[in-house]
């Protein structure tokens, strides 16, 4: 097996062996679908906005990918804290090779999780606007997962302990989710919140998925703008990950 495959496989093995992580990671999206989809869905419909589940599912899928990618970063942190990173970094290979193989493993996990949540939402009553666009949505999901995994890798390379990582989670990841368009439409919200949401790259990920899964009428910016901003986000997170990973001191 070549280096890429074996590093990728390492992430997969760890994922499959950790049953609790697999189950735990699905708990939150199910909870959100139940509480928001059915709970707030009724109010949403009464307000004349239509089917909330249709609006919400792309947001929940994005949230799953976001959390999964960031929490994957914990593996880098574990490797750093528990010594395995030394084995990787003292080997006669480029750091970028190590990062690439591992991050692709992390992204694959996010993609699997995203697909699981998509399946669960079908069970909950969600129906894609156009099934033909579902494979395109899947491609966007892959793109999104890689970008967010890079973000997670960069963050994990920067912090040295689990408390620090938790802090970053509260300070960065939660706002990225709640201050995006994942849970509410951007049309009738206060201007300051709208500005924040429009500066948040996660907003465009949600919006792209919404276009592809729930139909063009649900999108705010249009798919072209969404994809351009996602591409820029990808380049930024990728360089961030490479730069930070290269700076890890042993």
């Amino acid at each position, binding site marked *: *097996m*070549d*280096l890429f495959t*074996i*590093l990728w496989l*390492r992430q997969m*093995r*760890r994922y499959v*062996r*950790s049953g609790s992580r697999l189950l735990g990671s699905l708990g939150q999206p199910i909870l959100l679908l139940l509480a928001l989809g059915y709970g707030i869905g009724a109010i949403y419909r009464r307000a004349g906005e239509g089917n909330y589940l249709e609006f919400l599912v792309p947001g929940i899928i994005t949230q799953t990918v976001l959390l999964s990618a960031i929490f994957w970063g914990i593996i880098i942190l574990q*490797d750093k804290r*528990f*010594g*395995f990173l*030394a*084995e*990787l*970094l*003292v*080997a*006669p*290979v480029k750091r970028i090779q190590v990062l690439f193989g591992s991050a692709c493993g992390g992204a694959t996990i996010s993609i699997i999780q995203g697909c699981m949540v998509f399946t669960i939402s079908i069970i909950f009553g969600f129906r894609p606007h156009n099934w033909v666009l579902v494979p395109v949505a899947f491609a966007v999901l892959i793109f999104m997962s890689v970008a967010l995994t890079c973000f997670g890798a960069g963050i994990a390379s920067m912090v040295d302990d689990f408390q620090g990582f938790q802090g970053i989670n509260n300070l960065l990841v939660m706002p990225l989710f709640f201050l995006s368009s994942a849970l509410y439409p951007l049309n009738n919200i206060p201007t300051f919140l709208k500005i924040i949401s429009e500066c948040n790259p996660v907003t465009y990920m949600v919006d792209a998925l919404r276009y592809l899964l729930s139909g063009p009428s649900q999108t705010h910016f249009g798919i072209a703008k969404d994809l351009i901003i996602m591409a820029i986000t990808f380049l930024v997170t990728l360089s961030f990950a490479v730069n930070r990973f290269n700076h890890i001191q*042993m």
Partner: protein
Amino acid sequence: MTSEKAIISAKHVVKTFDAVKAVRDITFEVKKGEIFAFLGPNGAGKSTTIKMLTTMLKPTSGQLRLAGHDVTKERDSARKAFGIVFQDPSLDEELTAYENMELHASLYGVPKAKRAKRIENLMELVELWNRRNSLIKTFSGGMRRRLEIARGLLHEPKVLFLDEPTLGLDTQTRNLMWDYVQKLSHEKGMTIFFTTHYLDEAEDVAERIAIIDKGSIIAIGTTTELCRLTKTTTLEEAYLQLTGRALRDESEAGNNNALNAKMALRNRRLR
């Protein structure tokens, strides 16, 4: 000039962290096939030196060569030439013993045709072949250490670095481990460079010993030479004579200059 037989050579190596000089102008050589111990109190510069020799840290100045490669300039060639057992555990606990070995083989580009056989042979050697499919998190400290040694040997390095390899191991495992290491050194001509706090280990195993204190090498030689120099009878006495009895954390930085002068004198005498 570096002598032809030297596999490791350090020349005027200095490492400074901000204002702290962790390693102050050290020069030494290790011969091919030699078992070489690097001793010193806590904070003496042992780990910094090993980190520099194993490409984990760049020296501030000076030259380090390993198996014919400049450690800072030809990093990847140098990395292929050594194996290391780190002071802290460095196995992936969520993988099996075999998977850890496989990953290492891949990292070091061990030819695919040779991988399976070599992994089996080494795991047999450290008596872990029958546990190859167990997850590392089920292994005891001793088993982990043995596997780390096997892993360090997988790419057939010319030099094996062992950074306090027996820390926390019971006497049986320690003995067994040193038996392997000595056997490897004698059979394959592998150079062993190790650090330890157990002086009896160094006395029993090492062919030559360097003592480092406060960033400088204060003596190098065989146990007999060190004892003769300090007019003592055991390595432990010689070591205490050279490094003093004071606890390291309590010593003052101001004493360094006086100590350095003493060290230089001793170094000259030894050469």
